[in-house]
């Protein structure tokens, strides 16, 4: 299956000097998908301010990292799981939580709190209640089991999400400065190791699915949605955190999220300026007769790829076996900047790293301001931003949602859901952190620049209400189809608004995610940049 355009295909042939085989074409399709390479958004994301004296890691890694003093730091990120959650709300939302948790603990951080931002269609739409119940149960089912408190969030309703809901999940973790881990491969001859779950046929081409618009037959895409197992995630988290304590045993580690083995092998190689040899037949499988193509593109959950220092394998194996997890040496680091996949005696792919990573296409897509009148008629502004009067089972909707999330596990929740910002305590040094997730699609739809600007300002205000000053933010940019010049204009304007507001408020953007193609049957959602801002509490105020 190839989702490359004709021009992209030509570019592939050009960079290889030959036609790619089927597996290679699958790898290019997924690596050059919007979801993985940010080809439509890259040129605008560059303009965000990403530095401050406290920023230890900006965008480009699994999560951003900010110093909070006493040798401690926080890692955080927000990510979307919109498309899978619409197709299969429980598993889609659950694996969204799983993915963001792994993004945090892969950096060496112990996750200590989560937030989420949910946008559903009109409360009267026949599908809304089904989606709401499924998504909330999925987030709770996964997060509660892993034991990371869900301390706050937002739930909003608007008819523009009738055919395309938004599920954005945020997690923050605590780590030590001297124990930051990155998704990097280094040291020729070092072993490449799979830890966590076996690989199955679930989620194949999930990333390409997430880079496409929806039509009436979206239900048929259910097999591209992954299935989550929070028990394995919890064990994987504990095992990884234990393994990080072994001095210098782990060189680099990366979550296998979108595009599984494909994305992790190429990205880790690119960051380290090296290559990898991957022994596909050594990968533990949960189904028989899987082909190399399926194995490379599977998005089975709860897997991590790590590069260990040669000779330290057995120490690591002991930890992962104690937690009853898979541990398999599946390759090695090589000097040449290419990834070679072998399946028994056969070489099934041999691809240079650069064209798939840094050399991925970047587009300056056409932009055009929307014709206001026609657009407003299609998307009337709904008064009241979060439908606070909606009730479910005798409770205000927000409360009905929050009580299904464990917000007090971890014994750090000073202010839980329902207030302007959540406040959590850092046990290690007694400091308090304030967290808020916020969006203003209603304003962005009228004026994406002003709306995005205002979203940042209001987030800052939310933190101020509990006595906190911002340290940084992460954003999840949910937009429609980027091939539509009106949508691309909204994106460009919203990014400009975010960048200006961040610059004015001295707030670095340390991580983020873009979700395009939120379009169903030709209808695009309102531009919905979601901000999650983290601050440090100077003097705690009751919110």
């Amino acid at each position, binding site marked *: 299956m190839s989702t490359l355009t004709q021009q992209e295909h030509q570019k592939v042939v050009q960079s290889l000097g030959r036609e790619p085989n089927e597996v290679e074409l699958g790898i290019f399709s997924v690596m050059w998908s919007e979801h993985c390479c940010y080809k439509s958004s890259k040129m605008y994301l560059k303009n965000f301010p990403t530095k401050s004296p406290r920023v230890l890691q900006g965008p480009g890694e699994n999560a951003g990292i900010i110093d909070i003093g006493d040798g401690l730091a926080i890692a955080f990120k927000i990510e979307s799981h919109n498309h899978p959650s619409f197709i299969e709300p429980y598993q889609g939302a659950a694996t969204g939580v799983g993915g963001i948790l792994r993004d945090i603990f892969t950096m060496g951080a112990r996750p200590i709190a989560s937030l989420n931002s949910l946008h559903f269609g009109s409360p009267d739409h026949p599908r809304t209640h089904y989606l709401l119940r499924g998504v909330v149960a999925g987030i*709770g089912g996964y997060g*509660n*089991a892993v*034991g990371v408190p869900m301390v706050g969030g937002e739930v909003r309703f608007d008819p523009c999400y009738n055919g395309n809901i938004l599920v954005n999940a945020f997690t923050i973790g605590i780590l030590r400065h001297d124990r930051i881990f990155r998704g990097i491969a280094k040291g020729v001859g070092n072993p490449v190791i799979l830890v966590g779950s076996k690989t199955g046929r679930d989620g194949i081409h999930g990333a390409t699915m997430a880079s496409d618009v929806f039509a009436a037959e979206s239900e048929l895409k259910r097999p591209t949605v992954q299935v989550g197992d*929070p028990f394995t995630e919890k064990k994987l988290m504990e095992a990884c955190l234990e393994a990080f304590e072994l001095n210098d045993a782990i060189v680099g580690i990366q979550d296998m999220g979108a595009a599984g083995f494909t994305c992790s092998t190429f990205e880790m190689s690119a960051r380290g300026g090296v290559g990898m040899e991957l022994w596909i037949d050594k990968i533990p499988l949960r189904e028989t007769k899987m082909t190399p193509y399926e194995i490379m593109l599977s998005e089975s959950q709860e897997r991590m790829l790590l590069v260990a220092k040669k000779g330290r394998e057995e120490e690591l194996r002991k930890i992962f076996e104690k937690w009853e997890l898979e541990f398999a040496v599946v390759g090695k680091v090589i000097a040449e900047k290419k990834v070679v996949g072998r399946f028994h005696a056969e070489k099934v792919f041999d691809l240079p790293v650069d064209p798939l990573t840094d050399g991925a296409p970047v587009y300056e897509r056409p932009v055009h301001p929307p014709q206001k009148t026609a657009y407003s008629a299609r998307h009337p502004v709904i008064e009241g931003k979060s439908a606070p009067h909606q009730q479910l089972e005798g409770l205000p909707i927000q409360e009905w949602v929050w*009580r*299904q999330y*464990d917000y007090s596990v971890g*014994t750090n929740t*000073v202010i839980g859901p329902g207030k302007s910002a959540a406040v959590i305590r850092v046990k290690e040094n007694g400091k308090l952190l304030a967290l808020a997730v916020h969006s203003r699609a209603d304003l962005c739809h009228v004026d994406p620049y002003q709306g995005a600007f205002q979203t940042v300002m209001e987030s800052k205000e939310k933190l101020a209400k509990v006595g906190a000053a911002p340290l940084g933010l992460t954003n999840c940019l949910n937009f429609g189809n980027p091939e539509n010049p009106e949508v691309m204009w909204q994106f460009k304007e919203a990014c400009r608004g975010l960048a200006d507001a961040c610059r004015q408020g001295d707030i670095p953007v340390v991580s983020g995610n873009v979700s395009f193609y939120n379009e169903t049957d030709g209808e695009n959602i309102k531009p919905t940049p979601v901000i999650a801002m983290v601050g440090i509490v100077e003097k705690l105020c009751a919110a």
Partner: protein
Amino acid sequence: MKFGIVQFPGSNCDADCLHVVQNILRQEGFIIWHASTDLNGADCVILPGGFSYGDYLRTGAMAAHSPVMKSVVDFAERGGRVLGICNGFQILCEVGLLPGVLMRNKNLQFLCEKTELIADRSDTPFTSGYQKGKKITMPIAHMEGNYTIDDAGLASLKKRNQIVFRYAKNPNGSVGDIAGIINEKGNVLGLMPHPERVCETALGGTDGLKLFESVVRSCQH
């Protein structure tokens, strides 16, 4: 005194309990891995909350068959103090140290909220810090907290004065509003609410701390 906190794969309140024991009570606390049969000389064993072995089967059913539970049952039979919180309570019922079973909440949803409890006993090793009949506040966070027992069992619990905590306003459908019970001998307590989450003023209350302090006191006598 020494608190041994059992860690099953999937436990997620083990660290919270350890924090209370070490940093607030200033007592000795350690983790006991589920595969171990050595309780390491603990004076009180805590079975913490979480989702032991994923709880994909009936809650606590797998954990009841783990190696460590053989030792915990022996320890309890010799009179050792055992405290089961949330998933720990479910495990105590599954292993037979406490009667009854925890079913899904009446509304079939996970419930996380503050609940008011009535302490019915102040004469157990776990509850000497509470005043009988007085209301206290503790959070619940569970999917299966609906305590269920047949009529004869309920009558027996009442007769033997084994109901220790009742909900002031029943959140989950529990028979007799039961939130926590003790065994006949008075050395094994199981409860669904989380006392370890209300041990610091900063986190919204200290009603849970009294439970742990009671245990420490009981071991000093």
